[in-house]
């Protein structure tokens, strides 16, 4: 299964709710844990102050992106890494292909990277005849199943323990009642062989330090450390928005991102990659390639409001707290990034036409704003994209006509009241199916019951 684009969001979300209730149960339960842990972790620090700081550093970096990217490139080259620039996914795949061909690579291990999902790395490598193995446990599970990730941090969040027990039983013959630790041990054993055999390790990058040319990676399982140090070639795919000015900044970001993502003070493993193995080093890759990827990011940066979404550190906190995301997980969103952050970067990166109806996949409850570690004004940006969608005529004609008529009436109180009086005489439960908007409402709920007398009528008659 791969993503087919956001446009089927309504159908896919409804299908998920109807046909796969276990997805909702798994996602709700896992996000409950994420939320409790994050809340606890935020409460241990002056999180408001940290988040202001993180917002400011990221905004500064994005406002001076050209300068910092050039600085990062110079430093990376000085460290002995090779630097490539990819404007599009196609460019990135072509660069990858060249490296694979140059080095005669036949097997690759992958550290978890949403950018690699965005670019479609696995399919491409497989087409080239390269055996690719995901090494993050969640990614490993969904790779075995053949699904894309449904969460930025917990790619298999939509899968229950029972799903995993059944999968491992089928693939490895493990007992059906193996607990999480036993399942992880089975995966670890299988993955060890793959790590040792791999010619190529592919990772993303949580941060790229301009000052030192350092790629910083946070993880919990140690698979990133292995993927980036065992194979003879390491490719780091890094989105251009991942830049931070100074090494010192990473110290704050690794802590804040860990707290926001999983509620940990810091991830179990933290790698700072400076370049290939140097003389005297015991291990490390012979070559490090850093592919700096745009793929729609400068397009988003050019938007005078939505550029703020590029501050995102991909912690997943907005997904975890989002009551919309929590009902279905990420798959119905139809592309790599789901939840609130997906809904605000999709229109900028893919184009608003391609991103519909994601800006509307929110009740605007605002819960995400309180959690975002880099203070992205998510509801504001959802509204911003809704305005763009209206401007481009991407919303329904009935809605447009309805709101225009409603506005006209609202400017004429007498007409507004007369219309309200008429509405009260329609039996909404029976008649609702014939009315636009209400017909969709009564599909899932009983129709609202009008008051016997409107309040304005009661006021006119006198309230005792």
């Amino acid at each position: 299964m791969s993503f087919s684009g956001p446009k089927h969001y309504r159908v896919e979300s409804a299908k998920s709710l109807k046909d796969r209730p276990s997805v909702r149960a798994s996602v709700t339960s896992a996000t409950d844990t994420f939320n409790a842990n994050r809340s606890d972790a935020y409460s241990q620090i002056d999180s408001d102050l940290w988040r202001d700081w993180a917002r400011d550093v990221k905004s500064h970096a994005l406002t001076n992106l050209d300068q910092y990217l050039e600085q990062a490139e110079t430093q990376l080259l000085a460290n002995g890494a090779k630097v490539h620039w990819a404007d599009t996914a196609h460019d990135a795949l072509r660069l990858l292909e060249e490296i694979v061909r140059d080095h005669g690579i036949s097997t690759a291990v992958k550290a978890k990277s949403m950018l690699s999902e965005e670019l479609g790395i696995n399919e491409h490598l497989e087409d080239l005849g390269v055996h690719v193995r995901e090494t993050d446990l969640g990614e490993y599970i969904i790779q075995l199943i053949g699904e894309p990730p449904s969460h930025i941090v917990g790619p298999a969040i939509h899968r229950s323990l029972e799903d995993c027990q059944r999968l491992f039983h089928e693939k490895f013959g493990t007992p059906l009642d193996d607990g999480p630790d036993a399942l992880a041990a089975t995966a670890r054993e299988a993955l060890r062989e793959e790590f040792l055999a791999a010619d190529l390790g592919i990772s993303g990058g949580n941060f790229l330090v301009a000052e030192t040319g350092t790629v910083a990676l946070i993880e919990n399982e140690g698979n990133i450390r292995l993927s980036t140090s065992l194979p003879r070639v390491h490719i780091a795919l890094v989105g251009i928005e991942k830049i931070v000015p100074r090494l010192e900044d990473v110290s704050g970001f690794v802590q804040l991102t860990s707290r926001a993502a999983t509620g940990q003070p810091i991830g179990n493993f933290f790698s700072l990659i400076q370049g290939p193995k140097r003389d005297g080093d015991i291990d490390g890759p012979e070559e490090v390639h850093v592919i700096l990827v745009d793929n729609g990011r400068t397009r988003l940066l050019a938007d005078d409001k939505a550029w703020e979404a590029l501050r995102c550190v991909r912690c997943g906190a907005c997904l975890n707290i989002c009551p919309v995301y929590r009902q279905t997980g990420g798959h119905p969103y139809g592309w790599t990034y789901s939840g609130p952050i997906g809904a605000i970067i999709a229109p900028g990166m893919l184009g608003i036409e391609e991103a519909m109806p994601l800006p509307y996949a929110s009740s605007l409850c605002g819960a995400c704003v309180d959690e975002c570690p880099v203070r992205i004004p998510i509801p504001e940006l959802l509204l911003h994209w809704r305005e763009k969608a209206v401007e481009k005529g991407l919303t329904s004609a009935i809605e447009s006509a309805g709101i225009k008529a409603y506005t006209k009436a609202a400017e004429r109180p007498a007409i507004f009241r007369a219309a309200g009086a008429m509405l009260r005489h329609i039996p909404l439960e029976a008649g609702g199916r014939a009315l636009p908007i209400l017909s969709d409402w009564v599909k899932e709920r009983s129709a609202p019951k009008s008051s016997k007398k409107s309040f304005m009528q009661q006021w006119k008659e006198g309230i005792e």
Partner: protein
Amino acid sequence: MKAALFATCLGDQFYADACADAVRLLRYAGVDVDVPQSQTCCGQPAYNAGRKPEAIRMAYQTLDTFDSADYVVLPSGSCAGMIRCFYPDLMNNELERAQDLAARTYELSHFLVEVLGIRDLGSGLKGKRIAYHHSCHALRELGVCDHPISLLKNCGAEVVSWEADEECCGFGGLFSAKLPEVSAAMADRKLDTLPGVDFVTSTDGGCLLQLSGRGDRHRLSVQFRHLASVLWEGVGL
């Protein structure tokens, strides 16, 4: 003390009795209540649909209606949030008037506690077990959190803890009709976690329509009542 009541479009049609109870409550608290006749809709449905030009027109209608009121009180956190948080941005060329209106505008329980300084209304809710649903906009835009709960408790009610009390009910205006399946699942999350209570209450009619409509579909017997009516009962006259 004088205040104008903005019943809101939803309140006028679907929670008319609660609006009338809001009038009774305010009068009981010594407020001289006015209901300006030119009030219609705050414009939030258009604003949230991405239709700023229409929202602006309704905002001006509202601004003109309540220009001379000392305070504007709404039995809705959502519409109060619209006026307080978004009007100033919408009406750039009338910024001062918009800011002035925003500063005078309150959700009902917020007004009772913050402006009137009321703590105790009466003891009419003695023995009642109540679940309070935080409307997202009352909670996050206005910071209305303890105000209604303390009023309910001081009327003798037991406000029971509810795991999902701060989670969105899934109404979201047009959202509930655009994505009805997800919206209903959101309501189900609220209803599935609801403890045994006499009734559920909230500041916002929109949330109550959503929760009661879905509850009715599931044939739940629990009642969903507007905060204005519950507080009026709390007075216990």
